[in-house]
Every structure is written in structure tokens, then in C-alpha cells.
């Protein structure tokens, strides 16, 4: 497995990078534990009793048909949605606890959205530095130095003083990714990061995510890019009807799916 790291964040530098197959995952530190998670919007039950763990350093892909609850599951992990019932534990902190400061907690969980959500009124540089400067009290010089390094890694350094309106979709999404990395999160959640991109821009964004995965960053990604999921994931979760129907290594899911729903979904999409 290639170990050359092109994107690396401080939080993973000191920790051992994944070297073995997914068989070692049980020995890894549990980062997020989800127990019996349910979420309803009014009468509509979107998630019904999900129990799952995300381990440090693993890359988990979530696949499944539209409306299966993939995005909602992801959004519950950083409390953009409040669970209706169930428990989410992040690094031994129970997130249901009212005393937990959601903002502080979210600093450790990066998120990248389908529609980029870059800040249009801020320059590329300020998009990256605003959160570290405000919430981590990082001095401007320090924040800009780190931002410049991140921009350089994704090939956007020459755009540092532009406004996002001057960027292409692929560039906006790369900006959104490093904006999340600037907070040095322990895990990054990707919510269909390439679904809103023109086909010729999908590759450049996937390259950045791939490099991130190889650097040992913990990643949970909801995606319709099956080839990509198969290539980078340690584990693939298939969701349907608000539950995880089946999970396993990419090989197990894409070649030997057992659940009939998984089989029928993959046959339609592959």
C-alpha cells in the first residue's frame, strides 16, 4: 500500500497510519460509536435503529439508494440533525448530553457538503482562516501560513485572494475540503462531494479525497461513485430504508453481496 502522503493534517502525523487490511480495525481506537440511532422528521422515519462504529484511520463509504437515510446518518454524526432517539458517542463523549458544547464538538469533525457551501463574501484565504482565527484564536499570520500550505497542496495557491465566484465547481469543492482540514479535525464527513460537479471536475476532487485517505485521515463518505468507494474504502456500508442492510470490505460488497437489496441496488448502478 502506498504510504507517500500528500495531504496530511497535524492530528494524524503522530499516529500510526493504517498499514494492514481491515482485519486490524478492531484493535484501532473507536472514534464514533452510534447506538440504536433513530431520526424522524414529523411522521417520516428516516433512520430506524442504527448501531455502528467508526474507527480511527478507516475510510468508510456509505452507499445506497436515494432517501435511504445516508445523508441524515452523516448529519447526525456532527449534530447538524438532532437524533430522535439513540446514542452517539464521540471519543467517549456522549453527544446527547445537554452540557456538550456542539460547536466545540464539531471542531473535531470536518464536513464537506454536496453544494460546497463556501462563503461567497470572503476571499479564498479568509474562507479557510475564519474558523481557526475565531474559534481557535489562531493569530492571523499563523492561520494564513497554514492555509497557504493547504492551498498549495490542492493547487489553489494562486487563487488565494479571489472570491469563490471566480472558482469552478471543482475548485470550490477543493477549497471546502481544505477549509475543513484547517480546523484539524479527527474525522471528515463527505456528503456526496462530487454529485453537484460537472463530470470533468469529479476527478480533481476525488484525487484530493484519495490523498487524504492515504494520509490516514478517518473518513466517512456518502457517495454514488462506486468505483471510487471500491478503491479507497476499508469498509462499505449499504443503507436502505433507514437501516444498514449490509456491510463489509469493498470486495465483499461489490463482488459477493448477500442481501438481495444490495444485489438489486448494485445491479442497477454498476
Amino acid at each position, binding site marked *: 500500500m502506498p504510504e507517500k502522503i500528500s495531504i496530511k493534517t497535524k492530528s494524524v502525523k503522530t499516529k500510526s497510519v493504517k498499514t494492514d487490511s481491515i482485519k486490524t480495525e478492531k484493535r484501532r481506537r473507536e472514534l464514533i460509536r452510534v447506538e440504536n440511532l433513530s431520526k424522524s422528521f414529523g411522521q417520516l422515519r428516516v433512520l430506524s435503529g442504527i448501531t455502528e462504529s467508526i474507527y480511527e484511520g478507516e475510510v468508510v463509504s456509505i452507499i445506497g439508494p436515494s432517501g435511504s437515510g445516508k445523508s441524515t446518518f452523516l448529519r447526525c454524526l456532527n449534530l447538524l440533525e438532532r437524533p430522535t432517539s439513540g446514542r452517539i458517542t464521540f471519543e467517549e463523549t456522549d453527544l446527547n448530553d445537554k452540557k456538550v458544547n*456542539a*460547536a466545540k464538538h*464539531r471542531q473535531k469533525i470536518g464536513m464537506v*457538503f454536496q453544494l460546497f*457551501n463556501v*462563503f*461567497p463574501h470572503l476571499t479564498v484565504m479568509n474562507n479557510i482562516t475564519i474558523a481557526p482565527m475565531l474559534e481557535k484564536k489562531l493569530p492571523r499570520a499563523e492561520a494564513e501560513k497554514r492555509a497557504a500550505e493547504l492551498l498549495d497542496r490542492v493547487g489553489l495557491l494562486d487563487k488565494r485572494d479571489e472570491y469563490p*465566484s471566480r472558482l469552478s465547481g471543482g475548485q470550490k469543492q477543493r477549497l471546502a475540503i481544505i477549509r475543513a482540514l484547517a480546523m484539524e479535525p479527527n474525522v471528515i464527513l463527505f456528503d456526496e462531494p462530487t454529485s453537484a460537479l460537472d463530470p470533468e471536475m469529479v476527478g480533481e476532487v476525488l484525487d484530493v479525497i484519495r490523498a487524504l485517505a492515504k494520509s490516514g485521515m478517518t473518513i466517512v463518505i456518502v457517495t454514488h461513485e462506486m468505483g471510487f468507494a471500491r478503491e479507497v474504502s476499508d469498509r462499505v456500508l449499504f443503507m436502505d430504508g433507514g437501516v444498514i442492510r449490509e456491510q463489509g470490505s469493498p470486495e465483499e460488497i461489490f463482488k459477493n453481496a448477500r442481501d438481495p437489496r444490495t444485489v438489486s441496488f448494485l445491479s442497477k448502478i454498476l
Partner: protein
Amino acid sequence: MLNQIVKLWLKYWYVFAEGLWGTLWMSAVSVFFAVLLGTFLAVMKLSRFRVLRWIVDVYLWIMRGTPILLQLYFFWIGLPKILPLELSDTTCVLSALIFNAGAYVCEVVRSGIQAVDPGQAEAAKSLGMSGYNTMTRIILPQAVKNILPALGSEFISMIKQTSLASVFFVPELMTAQKSVQSATFLSIQSLIIAGVIYLAVTSILTAALRVYERRLRKSECNA
């Protein structure tokens, strides 16, 4: 008739000018404070605390459901009784105008905030930004673009609304008209002069606002 109007203007133009000055500064001051009050109310109205939303609802219900003239009388009579201060008529009238306009500005600001893509707040939250920073650094700067044109119209209607202050002889354009009228008994003529001045001011401001909006739209097209 025209002759009389010209004569009246030449003799009393400074009275009208002073009145216009009163109208303009009172409008500016009341819109300024109404924006502060309205923004504060709008943020309260969008809060997740039900009590705060309820307070704003009651406030809007009263301020928008009663005539402004009644509110002016209420402040003019009531305010000096509540506050242990020497309050001029102007202060009382200004407060009433501010509290009334604040209710309307609140709705303008609220819809301006709600027109900002909710993804922006989510992105800010996902970066771990506090609610306060999300509002002041991400949402409000983007909402301003939606709010400014509506505030321009609010200023224009405030120029007309300040004429109610003449009921209390607070110096402004309608009060000026009243004093010219009582000195000369030329009521129609002085009313026409005041009307032309109002029309000129509101027309200039409306045109300026239109230019500003067009420029705003152009910059959006480039975005």
C-alpha cells in the same frame, strides 16, 4: 396663484428649508435606530427559544396593529411619565417613530436573513463556529445585500411619516408649512410648496435606490 406661490417661496424659503432639514435628520436618526432595534428583534424572532419569539410576536402585533398616530400620542404623553427625565417633544416623537419602524424593519431583516442559503449556516456550524460568530460573520454580511434595498424604501416612507410630528409642533417640513400658513393664511399655496419639496426628495431617493439596486444586480450576475 402661481405668482402667489413664487412670492411665498421667496419670502419664506428658509422656513421650508429648516423644516426640510428637520424632516431629513429625524428620518435618518429614526431609520438608523430602527435598524438596530429591528435587527435585534429579527435575531430574537429567529431564536430557538420560544419565549423570545413570543415576545417579538406580541411586539409586532401591537406596533403593526395600532395607528402610528396613536403610538405618537402614547409616547408623547406616556414617556415623560415613565422616565424620570426631561424629555423634549422631539425625543418623544422620535422614540415613537423608532419603535414603530423597528417593527417593520424587523420583518425586513428577518426575511433577509432567511433568504441566505441555509447551507451557509450549516457550513459555519460544521467548522465549529459559535452561533454568535455564525450570525455576525457569515449570515448577516450576506443578508445585508437582501436588506439594503428594503431599508431604502423604509427611509423614503419615514420621510413621509415624520410629517405626523407636526401634530406636536416638532420642527420638520409639515410644521414649517403650518407656521407659514398661520402667518400668511395662504394654506393651499404653502401646502403645494411643501408637497413639491416632499415629491422632489422622495423622487431623488427613489431614483438613487433604483441605481443602487441595478448595480447590485449587475454584481450578482458577475458572481
